[in-house]
């Protein structure tokens, strides 16, 4: 596949190297030529000098043939503009933008651009690390579904997966037991110490927490 990455900072260069390593055809755009040093000497992809919000630069970088477009420069507005150009002007199928401001990130999702907000993801991970809660949300870049993880306490042990399932709203996806990941059927009985990963609709989260409240109380 052919990917175009704009912004060759720490994130952009790491992303470019990963995609190239996985055998993809990668082109990187940056305004400053010294930024390309981050790619290392043996980077097999192409490098194009210029700004990501200029249609001529993007054409030169081959955006018309790109299967995917990622933008991660330092400026939120620049990122969103480039993403919109890629999505709506050049009709690139998959467009992803890094947006630091959580409010803007949420708003631009509505414009059909997938946004990654490192602020939200980072705050999430640090909150979990500080609180060491047995119930925590895993970072997942969608706002209409949550992925959560919790540890089964003695009080919750013995319940079945079905008992934690609310039709159309929650589903237990994985039960990690003794370092083995089980993809459970409904009649699997939970054991104390199991780590459960579930998907849940945001409006059903309170309900799910109530169902597993023994887990919360025992924290």
């Amino acid at each position, binding site marked *: 596949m052919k990917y175009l990455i704009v912004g060759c900072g720490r994130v952009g260069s790491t992303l470019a190297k990963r995609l190239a390593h996985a055998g993809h055809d990668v082109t990187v755009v940056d305004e400053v030529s010294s930024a390309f040093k981050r790619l290392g000497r043996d980077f097999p992809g192409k490098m194009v000098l210029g700004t990501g*919000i*200029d*249609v*001529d630069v993007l054409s030169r970088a081959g955006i018309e043939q790109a299967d995917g477009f990622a933008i991660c420069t330092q*400026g*939120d*507005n*620049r990122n*969103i*503009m480039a993403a*919109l*150009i890629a999505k*709506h*002007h050049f009709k690139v199928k998959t467009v992803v933008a890094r947006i630091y401001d959580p*409010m*803007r990130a949420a*708003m631009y999702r*509505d*414009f059909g651009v997938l946004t990654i907000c490192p602020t939200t993801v980072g705050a999430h991970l640090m909150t979990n690390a500080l609180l060491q809660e047995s119930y925590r949300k895993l970072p997942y870049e969608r706002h209409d579904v949550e992925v959560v993880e919790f540890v089964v306490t003695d009080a919750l042990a013995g319940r079945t997966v079905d008992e934690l399932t609310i039709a159309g709203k929650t589903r237990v996806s994985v039960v990690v037991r003794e370092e083995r990941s089980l993809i459970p059927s409904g009649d699997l009985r939970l054991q104390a110490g199991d780590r459960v990963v579930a998907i849940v609709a945001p409006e059903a989260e309170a309900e799910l927490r109530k169902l597993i409240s023994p887990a919360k109380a025992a924290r």
Partner: protein
Amino acid sequence: MFIIVVGGGKLGTYLARALLEAHHEVVVVEKIERKAQVLAQTLNAEIAQVGDGCDPLVLEEAGAGRADVVIADTGDDEDNLVICLVTKKRFSKPRTIARVNNPKNKQIFEELGIDSVVSGTEIVMNMVAEEVNRARV
């Protein structure tokens, strides 16, 4: 009419002055405090507001909910686009007018639904082209 001008540089300042002279209600939103102070001193203390016009809360405070027109005239095309898109998304009423520096962005802005897009470069280029044509005749 009630007009919000985002960007209090030279263009914004002269624009605000001309609009005030034509008896319009004007608020100028400017990110840099020093520039906003100059605006307040040279024009009118009440019209200058310090803030980032890309922020919906700043636009709301400036009165975007009841504005007839929002003009984005900063020196950065990406900021002007975001100002207009935020205005369109959050406040349905105002018409959006954007300045673009790169004339090729005019088409992009129009595709993304900005009501009026002005490119200074394009205007001057058209004049040059007219001069060239006239010289040929």
